[in-house]
């Protein structure tokens, strides 16, 4: 056998990498910070490698004359998994989000099993993105997979903390509610070719899928898991679980709307969702006004931002995947920046309650600034990362209906007032003299996050190449 002709498929290699990383991270959990750091570097490099993949020449030469076929399909359990141009951006973003979360986990002294859980979650979400065909359309079983991943996410979110478990528990609800709707819709979709003239079948399938997607997107009033979890969970876990789940749901929505366009024209789905998106963004902004915990404030700001993404996806005349992907990219940056600050603050203070934050900005200015700028980015404050996306969304929304834009603006204003209130507390006179000063690594992480945020705020066109390529998965 000539070893020069040996071609290995990439996906088993990738899964083996995930599994061995998870096992190694668990076995070496005593050195959790180092395993997290190594994991962050590995995930970051892999993300870059996947992003740079040339689909015209998908063979990657390895030492010893071996080569990796990056796009070779793999069939298991009746499902086909394949890296394609359409799912590559999702895989790369999954890896990038995991790298960010693992980087933040290097700042944490608790829950040593987090790196292992992060790799498991990454493996699950990657498999979901890479599923291209099956005995039934993969999208129909996706909510069941999301249920399983939400269950694994619970372990990361609770992190062995003896705190109120209602937030992680609530994260299980949306995929669980959506799963039966998708399964019944799958039966109706199978019937469409048999009765192409029967409009009722198409309408019923569209209604069930639309309702299922709506539940998965978790708008108001299904939103409660986000702020509660943001308050109780470690920021790194919150960042990882929330963003991976939301990215998977956005990808699923794009797949469903592309494969079954009758969801849009045979039902009132866009109208339901645009109203619920508006309510979500308004409620996020108003509730942020009264938040007494920095984590919860982060959660409400993230909720307000998520509502805007839903609104952009749903509103007739406004629907734009370009804008949605742009907003989501800015969301990742803002959430990472806020989480970078929050992780260090929580480690230093033991809690993110407002009482504990009094004067913390004096001792920990960089991390306080990272938190504030990240949260401001989530509500689209000028000179923050989120401003360009929010401004573009507001302008487009105003062209459809200026009243909707005004409501979003008022909600953002409410959130900004809440953030200013927290900023005043953080930069007031220091009461607790035992608050430690920032350490070099924490400062470096905060400065890096701030630099990324400011760079994107000043030059949002930096993301245009990323968005153009990511649109292959959504547009």
């Amino acid at each position: 056998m000539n070893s020069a002709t040996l071609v290995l498929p990439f996906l088993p290699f990738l899964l083996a990498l995930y599994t061995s990383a998870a096992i190694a991270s668990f076995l070496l959990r005593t050195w959790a910070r180092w395993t997290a750091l190594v994991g962050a570097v590995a995930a970051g490099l892999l993300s870059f490698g996947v992003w740079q993949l040339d689909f015209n020449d998908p063979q990657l030469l390895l030492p010893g004359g071996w080569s990796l076929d990056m796009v070779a399909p793999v069939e298991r359990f009746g499902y086909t998994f394949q890296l394609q141009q359409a799912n590559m951006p999702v895989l790369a973003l999954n890896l990038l989000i995991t790298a960010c979360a693992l980087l933040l986990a290097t700042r944490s002294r608790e829950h040593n099993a987090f790196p292992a859980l992060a790799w498991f979650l990454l493996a699950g979400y990657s498999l979901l993105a890479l599923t291209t065909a099956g005995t039934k359309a993969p999208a129909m079983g996706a909510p069941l997979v999301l249920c399983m991943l939400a269950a694994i996410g619970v372990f990361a979110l609770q992190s062995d903390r003896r705190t109120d478990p209602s937030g992680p528990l609530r994260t299980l609800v949306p995929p669980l509610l959506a799963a039966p709707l998708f399964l019944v819709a799958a039966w109706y979709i199978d019937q469409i070719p048999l009765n192409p003239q029967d409009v009722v079948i198409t309408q019923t399938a569209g209604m069930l899928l639309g309702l299922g997607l709506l539940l998965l997107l978790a708008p108001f009033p299904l939103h409660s898991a986000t702020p509660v979890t943001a308050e109780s969970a470690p920021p790194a876990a919150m960042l990882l679980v929330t963003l991976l789940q939301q990215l998977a749901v956005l990808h699923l929505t794009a797949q469903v709307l592309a494969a079954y366009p009758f969801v849009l024209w045979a039902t009132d789905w866009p109208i339901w969702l645009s109203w619920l998106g508006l309510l979500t963004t308004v409620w996020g902004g108003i509730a942020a006004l009264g938040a007494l915990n920095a984590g919860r404030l982060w959660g409400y700001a993230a909720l307000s931002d998520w509502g805007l993404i839903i609104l952009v996806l749903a509103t007739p005349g406004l629907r734009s995947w370009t804008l949605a992907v742009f907003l989501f990219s800015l969301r990742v940056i803002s959430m990472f920046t806020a989480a970078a600050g929050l992780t260090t603050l929580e480690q230093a203070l033991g809690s993110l309650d407002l009482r504990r934050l009094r004067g913390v900005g004096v001792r920990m200015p960089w991390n306080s600034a990272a938190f504030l700028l990240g949260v401001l980015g989530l509500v689209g404050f000028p000179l923050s990362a989120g401003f360009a996306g929010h401004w573009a969304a507001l302008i487009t929304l105003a062209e459809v209906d200026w009243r909707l834009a005004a409501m979003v603006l008022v909600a953002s204003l409410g959130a900004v007032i809440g953030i200013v209130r927290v900023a005043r507390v953080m930069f007031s006179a220091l009461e607790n003299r035992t608050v430690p000063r920032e350490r070099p690594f924490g400062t470096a992480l905060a400065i890096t996050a701030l630099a990324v945020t400011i760079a994107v705020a000043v030059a949002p066109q930096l993301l245009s190449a990323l968005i153009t390529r990511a649109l292959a998965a959504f547009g």
Partner: protein
Amino acid sequence: MDALWGALGAGFASNLGVLVLGAIAGMIVILWDWRVALAGVLFLQIGVGIVLVQIHQVPGVLVVGQIVAIVLATAMLALAATSTSATGSLHHAANWPLRLLALLFIVGTWWFIDPGYALPLFSLAETDLVIWCAICGLALVCFSGNPIVGGVAVLLWCTPLYAVAAVLLPGSGLAVMVGIAELLLVLACSYLALVEPAGAIDPAWRVRFPLPRAERRLAVIAQPSPAAITPAVSPNSGVPAGRDELLEKSA
């Protein structure tokens, strides 16, 4: 094996059998006892599985697999419930007359609206049964944030999920996925039950409107202290400070 399924099926796949299964689902919500709930949900899922074999010719081996999954799931929840001392949030679920009224309201509304919707390939009675199970699961989640109750709710909600996967999409492997998902979800709920603090936050303390002040927020009571038992009145809320501890002591 076929004779066994036939004998059991004759009992469960009748009007009386379906009614009994529905009543068990309702009793889980009304009685609000985790032991009754676990036994009830086990019986319910076995009953529904037998109905599926009897009426829809779902392969017996698939139903046996599901029964194994549900036995494991209930065992996990029972172990978690017996291993934890944090049962405070288990009792924050109103009283039984209120829960009974809520269920009666749902039944009344259902009867009044009478959607007459039947799932494809399912009879009206079967559809009503699985939707009723799902509603009872939702009611459990609405009444309580306790992880054990959440686990029971997951199992109740999985009843229609499994029925739909097994009957409408045979050969797709989705019924097996439902069983795996059920186990993982219950594992997560059991874990949450084990890490729940002894004095979980009472939702009554977390009302934050109108604009709150930092002093109003109470910390999680990790261990009941002598001071916490004193029925002092919080200056901001007007609610006795050690209310939960007093209730638990009197119980």
